[in-house]
């Protein structure tokens, strides 16, 4: 029963795959599967069920739908359903659409598993599957060589974060012998700190926080529905979600709050500026995603998970709306360059819907997003005045970039050439999302706090009047800035020097830093090791090689000068010794690197030369042997 939110899309995917010959049916099936998942999720959420799947050896996969999970489990398929409606309506000629639909459905299944996970193993499974599915989704158009590369970058980056979950799971297990969330509290402080570290790492990577943020840009290589889904309620949401879920226990670690708040604040500011500086609509939205999740992390760090949860929900709704609308823009103009869009006149209906999303992104009251943002702000001020001010600046940034994106993307402008107009299904999806964003405004009603606290199973801080004033003032300021810039025609460039702008827009140089600091060294290390592997390690056995070499040389000298040389007294022996040591010195290092095998081989050649064919040599050897034998028998016990 509790597995239904996972199984339904899983089976749905299979059904879609089976229907690949009937495209229409497949598209219908995909939407139906999502709707069914929503229903299943709602049922499960209502029953608050729990379940287990035994692996053996003391490992069980535990799931339960509790806390904020009740909301997430519904939110994920809900948004996915709308995205699928959009996707199914799109591009009817595309045969690969079925593959996309199948993977999207399975992607939802993975995300649902992540959401309902009640232990770290299940969490890790969902977590990694989401990442892997994102690889397929981002690389959907695999014939273009660049897209698989982007997919790989995204996957590898997030997988690095996954190590955090591995570490966390191992630490929990080491500390308690169990992987359950509920047992986490029993862990000793040391282990708990490791768990917290792992989870923060994983969450930061998944939620595209600094320094992992750039993977979101790579993720833009995927088709529009993919971006819409990844950036809203799934994938990116996973990081914030798990922190919300486990915050009560993790906050027992004393550095947890400052670190999370710090990451969130830096990302909110840096990401905001990226969004502001970007020239590409989708990438600007991606930057804003990082920033928005930064806000959620601030709230989690501050201890007000309900605020974070509310922000997450609101963001999921408006960001999917914005991405889908961006997809429409791409379809219409064939580009996402912000200086070339301005579709307001060409696609007025979409413009309105995008506007609603932009207003939510800008946290303009009375939208629900504004309420949650202010709750975040309140939390931030609670944890410190500088945090609060920083968050306020981040909020200002969000208003400015939201306005900028709207004006440049769907603002008034020449109708120009339109390649394709949105289909009915697409508009429907956008409409529903916009409606939901608007509907979230009910949070402003009295009792909104309580609803949030109930839904998120966490705390929220009532906003003080001063904060509201500050917040609203900043919103107004932001709008004013946008208006002024628009008027002056500087909204595209913001008046910044292009190199500075590009630096910021390119995520503050983080991708190239990663390339220079991590990717290149690692691959060069690999290359170097490979060369070493062929040239050195294959002959590593040759610590001994010096010996083999030396022995063969001795043999060589011995035989070259015939056996007389040895017999002929110590003088000759000394000269021989000197000769040998000179040779050894000359060839020293070289000799050591020579293969043991070749050393033995040479020794073999030399050994044969003792068999000179001259019987008097044998006689001499025998006499020497006799002397040596007597010496050994006399002096060695």
């Amino acid at each position, binding site marked *: 029963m509790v597995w239904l939110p996972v199984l339904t899309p899983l089976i749905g995917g299979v059904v879609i795959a089976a229907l690949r010959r009937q495209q229409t049916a497949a598209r219908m099936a995909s939407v139906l599967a999502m709707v069914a998942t929503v229903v299943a999720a709602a049922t499960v959420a209502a029953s608050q069920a729990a379940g287990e799947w035994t692996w053996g050896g003391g490992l069980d996969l535990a799931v339960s739908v509790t806390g904020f999970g009740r909301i997430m489990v519904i939110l994920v398929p809900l948004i996915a359903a709308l995205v699928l409606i959009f996707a199914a309506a799109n591009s009817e000629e595309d045969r690969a659409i079925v593959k996309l639909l199948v993977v999207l459905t399975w992607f939802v299944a993975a995300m649902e598993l992540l959401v309902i996970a009640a232990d770290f193993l299940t969490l890790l499974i969902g977590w990694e599957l989401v990442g892997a599915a994102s690889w397929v989704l981002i690389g959907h158009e695999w014939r273009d060589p660049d897209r698989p590369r982007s997919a790989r970058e995204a996957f590898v980056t997030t997988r690095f974060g996954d190590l955090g979950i591995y570490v966390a799971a191992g630490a929990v297990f080491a500390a308690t012998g169990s992987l359950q969330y509920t047992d986490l509290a029993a862990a000793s402080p040391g282990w708990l700190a490791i768990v917290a570290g792992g989870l923060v790492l994983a969450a930061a990577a998944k939620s595209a926080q600094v320094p992992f943020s750039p993977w979101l840009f790579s993720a833009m290589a995927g088709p529009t529905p993919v971006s819409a889904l990844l950036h809203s309620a799934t994938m990116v949401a996973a990081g914030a979600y798990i922190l919300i879920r486990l915050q009560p226990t993790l906050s027992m670690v004393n550095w947890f709050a400052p670190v999370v708040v710090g990451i969130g604040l830096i990302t909110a500011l840096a990401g905001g500026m990226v969004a502001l500086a970007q020239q590409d609509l989708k990438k600007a939205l991606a930057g804003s995603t990082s920033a928005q999740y930064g806000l959620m992390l601030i709230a989690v760090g501050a201890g007000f998970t309900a605020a974070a949860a509310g922000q997450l929900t609101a963001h999921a709704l408006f960001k999917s709306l914005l991405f889908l609308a961006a997809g429409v823009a791409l379809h219409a103009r064939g580009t996402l360059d912000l200086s070339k869009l301005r579709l307001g006149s060409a696609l007025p209906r979409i413009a309105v819907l995008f506007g609603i999303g932009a207003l939510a992104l800008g946290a303009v009251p009375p939208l629900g997003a504004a309420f949650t943002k202010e709750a975040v702000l309140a939390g931030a001020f609670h944890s410190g005045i500088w945090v609060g001010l920083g968050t306020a600046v981040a909020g200002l940034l969000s208003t400015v970039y939201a306005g900028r994106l709207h004006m440049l993307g769907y603002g008034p402008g020449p109708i120009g050439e339109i390649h394709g107009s949105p289909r009915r299904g697409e508009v429907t999806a956008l409409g529903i999302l916009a409606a939901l964003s608007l509907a979230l405004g009910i949070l402003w009603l009295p009792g909104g706090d309580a609803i949030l606290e109930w839904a998120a199973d966490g705390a929220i801080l009532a906003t003080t009047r001063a904060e509201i004033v500050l917040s609203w003032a900043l919103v107004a300021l932001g709008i004013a800035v946008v208006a002024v810039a628009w008027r002056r025609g500087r909204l595209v460039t913001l008046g910044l020097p292009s190199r500075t702008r590009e630096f910021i827009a390119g995520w503050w140089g983080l991708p190239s830093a990663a390339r220079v600091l991590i990717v290149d060294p690692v691959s060069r290390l690999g290359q170097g090791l490979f060369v070493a592997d062929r040239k050195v390690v294959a002959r590593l056995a040759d610590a001994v090689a010096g010996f083999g070499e030396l022995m063969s040389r001795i043999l060589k000298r011995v035989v070259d000068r015939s056996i007389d040389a040895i017999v002929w007294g110590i003088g000759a022996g000394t000269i021989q010794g000197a000769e040998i040591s000179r040779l050894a010195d000359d060839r020293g290092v070289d000799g050591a690197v020579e293969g043991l095998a070749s050393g033995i081989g040479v020794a073999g050649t030399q050994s044969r030369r003792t*068999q000179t*064919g*001259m*019987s*008097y040599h044998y*006689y*001499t050897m025998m*006499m020497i042997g006799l002397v040596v034998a007597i010496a050994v028998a006399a002096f060695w016990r």
Partner: protein
Amino acid sequence: MIDILLVVAAGIFGVGVYGALSQQSFVMIMMGLELMLNSAVLVVVTFWWGTTGGSPSGQLMVVVVLAVMAIEAAIGFALVTAVYRSRKADITEKLKRLRS
């Protein structure tokens, strides 16, 4: 007395070794080998006479050594003949087919 005898035997043995090692001709080598055995005879008799109280084994051993000398000489001559016939070789240096 025993000292003298043993030194003499050692001398004969040494000469034999020298001969066996230094001579090229097979027959000359065999002479060296015979000298070595000859010295062994002297050693055995020395001990038989001097230290072992006339142990009969000593005498027998002399006979055995004599037999060894005869047998080795006989087979040696036969082989030298055979080699000479097949290889026209009478010195060790001429036999270099089998080596390394």
